[in-house]
């Protein structure tokens, strides 16, 4: 992106970075969006490693038939914890909270977010919610065993500590709402001079679409979780058939939030990929407007498909057919993005660096995830696949292969900017290969097991599923090995004394115009935007196109 003033050129060379202030208080009381992003990153990587370890033990349990390493009740608690931690503490807040906080203001040429103190409060709410949820494991009647979806009536009748876990999720939702609200206001009010909406880079655009979903869908989860608490404490009966209530109402309310939450996870991931692909293809993004519109389209249509989680619950036929149709519709904007990325690569001069490998991995894995989603949207097939490993395989392809890989792609892409250091790229590639191979070995086997009829959330399995489970367990080891190599490489990179230039990849969005790591004040003089984003100087002759 060209700017009339090149901020990097006019600023004093020796300006201290935003890390310059030392001391724990300077971090815990900061209102600097960059520091808040780093705070989120540290918390989330920790939560991710915890939930990954839980996943490792679940897989280990299935290595042999019968009891392997744990009791059935432990297994129930573990899959609940794995889901709650991964979904509420890593995948949903992931990209917006870490990279959104760090880069949104810089990418739109703003000094900070609109409400910096509210931003810090969001982080505290996030940590409080996380602490409440984690405390629930060790207090009361023991760790919740309901699965992350807290389905009634079991969540109301079980003696485990569901009330506290649900309250933790409620607080996390509040944090999510405030972050969304903050981002929307920031983008409406603080874009740099000359950056009209159609000149805003695609990652901010994705955050904008996401923020609206966060703001409009999360309150429904809030009220639903509050009702579960009230049911448990005061026996309201709203979801209790014995008192005239309807458990299906719970499922509707839950999925009215939790399906759009899937798009809270994936839209920012797509936004990050839309930044990485043009940078490493050294070519302007193909179909900028189509990507923008598809982000908003996914957010809009995606909010209307929730009941496809409930095809076997006994809803009316009209509702089932309507939601099936809407589910197929939401594939269109997702496909538009895939085509745009692939077309961007076409005629680009592709540089296969570590972030680009993760981004390409994302496209491959997300495509499988998205297409298997269509299987489940088809009514007849759904009955067969419902509650099998096919579902588990599908959503791991979308959430881990999609959002997870995009998160790691973004981390490798923006790492030099965030820390002013560099990881070892060869090791990063080794990590990626392990992750990619292990992932497919693991979750593609899940798809097959699901088609064979292996039900999800079962502690044990029948003999004819055994080979599949063994393969998946081995896959999980390779995947975890890759993840550990990656984390090791990223942590070690912090201590390598390597000079990192301001723009190591040749990116063109505004964050590459500021030093690495950025100083406290993002911009010495606020930039003025005169051109569309992704304006690369062509490294090879390309056809002139109007995005």
């Amino acid at each position, binding site marked *: 992106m060209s700017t009339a003033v090149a901020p990097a050129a006019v600023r004093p060379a020796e300006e201290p970075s935003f890390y310059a202030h030392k001391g724990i208080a300077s971090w815990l009381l900061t209102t600097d969006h960059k520091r808040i992003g780093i705070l989120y990153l540290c918390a989330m990587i920790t939560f991710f490693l915890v939930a990954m370890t839980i996943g490792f033990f679940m897989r280990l349990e299935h290595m042999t038939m019968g009891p392997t390493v744990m009791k059935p009740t432990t297994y129930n608690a573990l899959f609940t914890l794995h889901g709650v931690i991964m979904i509420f503490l890593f995948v949903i807040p992931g990209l917006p909270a870490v990279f959104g906080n760090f880069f949104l203001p810089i990418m739109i040429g*703003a*000094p*900070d*977010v*609109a*409400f*910096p103190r*509210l931003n810090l409060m969001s982080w505290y709410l996030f940590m409080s919610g996380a602490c409440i949820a984690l405390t629930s494991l060790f207090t009361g009647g023991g760790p919740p065993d309901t699965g992350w979806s807290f389905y009634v009536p079991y969540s109301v009748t079980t003696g485990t500590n569901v009330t506290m876990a649900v309250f933790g999720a409620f607080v996390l939702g509040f944090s999510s*709402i405030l972050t*969304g*609200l*903050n981002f*929307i*206001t920031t983008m*409406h*009010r*603080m*874009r740099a*001079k*000359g*950056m*009209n*909406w159609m*000149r805003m880079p695609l990652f901010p655009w994705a955050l904008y679409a996401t923020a609206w979903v966060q*703001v*409009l869908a*999360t*309150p*429904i989860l*809030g*009220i*639903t979780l*509050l*009702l579960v608490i*009230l049911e448990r404490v*005061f*026996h*309201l*009966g*709203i979801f209790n058939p014995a*008192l*005239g*209530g*309807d458990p299906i*109402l719970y499922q509707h*309310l839950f999925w009215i939030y939790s399906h759009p939450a899937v798009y809270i996870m994936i839209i920012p991931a797509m936004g990050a990929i839309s930044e990485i692909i043009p940078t490493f293809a050294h070519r302007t993004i193909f179909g900028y407007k189509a990507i923008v519109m598809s982000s908003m389209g996914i957010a809009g249509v995606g909010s209307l498909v929730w009941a496809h989680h409930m095809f076997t619950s006994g809803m009316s036929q009209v509702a089932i057919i309507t939601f099936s149709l809407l589910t197929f519709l939401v594939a269109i904007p997702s496909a538009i993005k895939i085509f745009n990325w692939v077309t961007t690569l076409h005629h680009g001069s592709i540089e296969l660096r570590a972030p680009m490998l993760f981004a390409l991995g994302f496209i491959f894995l997300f495509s499988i995830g998205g297409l298997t989603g269509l299987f489940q949207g088809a009514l007849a097939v759904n009955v067969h696949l419902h509650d099998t490993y096919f579902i588990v395989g599908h959503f791991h392809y979308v959430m881990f292969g999609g959002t997870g890989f995009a998160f790691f792609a973004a981390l490798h892409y923006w790492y030099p900017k965030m820390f002013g250091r560099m990881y070892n790229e060869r090791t990063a590639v080794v990590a990626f290969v392990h992750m990619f191979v292990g992932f497919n070995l693991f979750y593609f086997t899940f798809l097959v097991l699901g088609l064979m009829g292996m039900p999800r959330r079962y502690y044990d399995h029948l003999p004819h599923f055994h080979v599949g489970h063994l393969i998946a367990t081995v896959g999980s080891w390779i995947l975890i090995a890759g993840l550990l190599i990656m984390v090791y490489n990223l942590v070690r990179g912090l201590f390598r004394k390597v000079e990192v230039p301001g723009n190591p990849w040749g990116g063109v969005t505004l964050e590459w115009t500021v030093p690495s790591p950025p100083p406290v004040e993002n911009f010495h003089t*606020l930039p003025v935007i*005169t051109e569309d984003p992704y304006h690369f100087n062509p490294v090879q002759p390309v056809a002139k196109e109007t995005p």
Partner: protein
Amino acid sequence: MTSAAAESTSETQPAEGHAGPHRDYIGAKLGMWIFVFTELILFGGLFVAYGMYRAMFPQDFHHASGELNVTLGVINTLVLLTSSLTIAMSITAIRLGKKVQAMALLSTTAVFGCVFLVNKFFEWKAKIHHGIFPGSPLLAQRHHGEALFFSLYYGMTGLHGLHVTVGVILMVIMLVFLARNKIRQDDFIKLENTGLYWHLVDVIWIFLLPLFYLAA
């Protein structure tokens, strides 16, 4: 292209100079409006539940509604509506620079909020005294729809009451801000946003009144 873009830009862009993110009047108001939307949706979940169960048990809802005290409900409505007026007047007063008047009107609003809560307390107390509360033995003997009506009644007026309480606390904080000149004639957005929140609380009550008290 560039000139057209520049024109459309100048309309959508914030004022020049960036006085700092803390003093963006429109931004602060935009943020508050979005928050108000989220509150509406929070209550929306309960309204959906109400609508569904009323459609399922119209007779039971009719009978149960007859047991609520319409007079108390109407008094509370008048109290809340008046309080919305006084907080709006308080905002006007500070915009005109009349600090004492603004504080007096804001205090009146807070008092009205407390009156509402006291009324609500006695209403609930009387009902609970009669054995009508979620999970009570009395309700267990009655029709499901009636029990659900009262569950929704306690749930929705309870959540609303919580919002009234938060509103009153906010007003006390705003009174301190007014006293310390942190809310002034030229910087009154905090008070205005408090007013916006208070109107929301009011609007939700206006829907609760007919749905619970006047459904008979």
